[in-house]
Structures are given as structure tokens and as C-alpha cells.
């Protein structure tokens, strides 16, 4: 979720600048960022679920193995 917050901060900047410069590229970029965020959320949460199923925890300190 923190990643989403960070991406949103970037998006606000892009939209603000696109308004300031009267240039729509910033907004197009935001649409792409949202698409990437969706993909990232789907895969990231998939990993968390796979991990939870194997380890019964989502504590990040215990995610020391790259495989199981």
C-alpha cells in the first residue's frame, strides 16, 4: 500500500505539471502508471498469498529465502 501512496504522489506531480504546461503527455503517463500499479498489485499480492500459504505469516523479516 505504501507503494500505491508513492505512485500517487508521482501521479499528482505529473497531473499538476501537465496542467501547468498545458501538455497532455503527463496525463497519458498517469494512465500508464495506473496500469502498471494494477499489474504490480495483482502480482505482488499473488506473491504474498503464495507465501502466506506456505509460511502462515506475512512478516517481511521472515522472508529471507528466495525459494521454498
Amino acid at each position, binding site marked *: 500500500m505504501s507503494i500505491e501512496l508513492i505512485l500517487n504522489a508521482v501521479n499528482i506531480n505529473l497531473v499538476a505539471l501537465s496542467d501547468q504546461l498545458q501538455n497532455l503527455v503527463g496525463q497519458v503517463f498517469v494512465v500508464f502508471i495506473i496500469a502498471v500499479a*494494477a499489474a504490480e498489485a495483482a502480482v505482488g*499480492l499473488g506473491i504474498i498469498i503464495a507465501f502466506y500459504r506456505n509460511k502462515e505469516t506475512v512478516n517481511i523479516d521472515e522472508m529471507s529465502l528466495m525459494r521454498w
Partner: protein
Amino acid sequence: MLDAYIPIFLFILVALGFAIFTLIVAGLVHPSRYSKVKLEPYECGIEPDTDARDRYSVRYYLVAMLFVIFDVETVFMFPWAVIMDELALFGLIEMLVFLFILVVGYVYAWRKGALEWT
């Protein structure tokens, strides 16, 4: 500031205000005679012995995930649909390629059984 949106904000405020106002009014007039049994969670009269928020099927996650992906795809279609007059054939081919890639994923999900619910 887009002026057309001011009434919408007003509408949101009015709707919120209405919901909270009715809750407050109802809170003032309704009776409150509580007992321990009345406050128990509904479980056919049996005393609950485990927490309700247990883990549940991963299918709900899969549905939500597919929803998010498809949602983003449809979002890409809206700006395309409104300027189809200008894009003409070129736009159609673009969108057919896009839809083809989407359908590949859809068929994959179907074949893998992500759409099954049994």
C-alpha cells in the same frame, strides 16, 4: 477548477449529511435496552467459539485480481471509443490488437480453471 463539478461536491456533502443526520436522529429516538445475549453475533443461538475473521478461499482473490486487470483494460477502451470518428480504420486495428492480447489472457485464465467456482 472545473465549475461543473462544484454541484457534485455539494451533492456528496448533502448525501453524507443526510446519512449522518438520520443516524443521529434515529440514535436519539430509538430505545436501547441491551443485554449480553442481544449483543452476541448471530450464530443460531450457539455461542461462537472462534473468531469470525478466519481465512477463506483464495478464489475471492483470483476474482478480484481478474477484475482489476480487466478494469484497467476497459479503462483504456473509453478514450478510444470517444474518438473513433477521428481514428477510423487505424484505431480499429489498434484496438483489435489490444483486444487480441486481452483475449489471450482470458483464454489462459479459462483453461487454467481460474474462472471455475467448484
